[in-house]
């Protein structure tokens, strides 16, 4: 699969590395040339030697998207730090370039929900984080009740898995 990731922040770069590791062709686009360094965290080689591509350019510029290979992309992930940028470029990928799988990261739950209803695949980290926190807190409240309403939240409430967020 040829995957194009726009936005090479923590989410974009981690995703890029793991998908490359799983044998996919991965191309990243970011307007900040310095973000390239993030791709090489934990790698013994350069990102390019490992087989990845990196393009410097603005997400809204079709020239940059094309240079990064959007025409051949099977999947497209919009992971810039701007919700609106992600929403707009996802729709461009979908409608103009007809990429099969398009996923947008949208931090605002309301916008994420509405655009999901419009047929965009969205990931809302805010919603996921809130749900995880709710789960942890319910767990903590439950164990407090079991202990007779006294004591601490217990070790499981501080949660080890939750630390893996974006």
């Amino acid at each position: 699969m040829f995957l194009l990731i726009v936005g090479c922040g923590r989410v974009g770069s981690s995703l890029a590395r793991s998908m490359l590791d799983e044998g996919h062709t991965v191309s990243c686009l970011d307007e900040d040339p310095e973000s390239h360094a993030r791709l090489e965290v934990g790698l013994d080689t350069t990102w390019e030697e490992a087989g990845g591509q990196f393009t410097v350019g603005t997400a809204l510029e079709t020239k940059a998207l094309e240079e990064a290979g959007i025409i051949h992309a099977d999947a497209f992930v919009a992971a810039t730090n701007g919700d609106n940028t992600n929403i707009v470029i996802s729709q461009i990928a979908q409608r103009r370039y007809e990429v099969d799988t398009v996923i947008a990261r949208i931090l605002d739950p309301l916008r994420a929900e509405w655009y999901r209803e419009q047929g965009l695949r969205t990931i809302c980290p805010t919603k996921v984080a809130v749900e995880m926190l709710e789960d942890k807190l319910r767990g903590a409240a439950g164990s407090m009740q079991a202990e007779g309403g006294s004591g601490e939240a217990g070790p499981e409430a501080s949660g080890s898995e939750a630390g893996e967020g974006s």
Partner: protein
Amino acid sequence: MYVIVAGAGKVGLNLTRELIGQGHEVTLIENRREQYLAAEQLLEHNVLYGDASEIWVLERAGIERADMVIAVTGDDEDNILICQVAKEKYGIDRIIARVNNPSNRAHFDLLNIKPVVSATELILRLLEHEVPHHNLVHLLDLEEEEIEIIEIRLGSKSTVVGRTVGELNTPDNTLVIAIIRDGRGVVPNASTVFEEGDDVLAVLDPDREEELKQIFTDA
């Protein structure tokens, strides 16, 4: 009319003031604190602090009862999104979006956000009108309505020079409406003779542009 304006930069601020002056009810939305405070000094309760691309902010501004939404922030993606939400979620037919970077115009078209206003394009068009580097200039394009007004400069080789408007066999759905000669505009009649250097203004169906251009430009 109730109008929501997104973005209190110079354009949004002046626009809001003018609209209020014309008796319209306006809410101006701005999410940069300093710009918001400056706008509030001037326009008081007509200004709302918040990000107009957030749905709850638009709802607080009363988008359900808005007659028109105008997005004039400095970010094209924000303007696209605000108009898209206004149109598709709240069914507001009348929107106007500002295009900051002309190369983003294709995105507005793709997502059916229109009409758009681009200061850069307007200035380029005026520049073209003043200093044409090819002999056809678009003065007005009403895409939806499929009508446009163009201006054609008659060169020395133009086959119509020396002929009258009446002699001309112009295609259907085209009409010569004015001739600008030596800096003065005249409304021609059938006996008006075309001269070299004339700027001919015509109103037409965009599909006819090529045909009309053939008639007026070089043989």
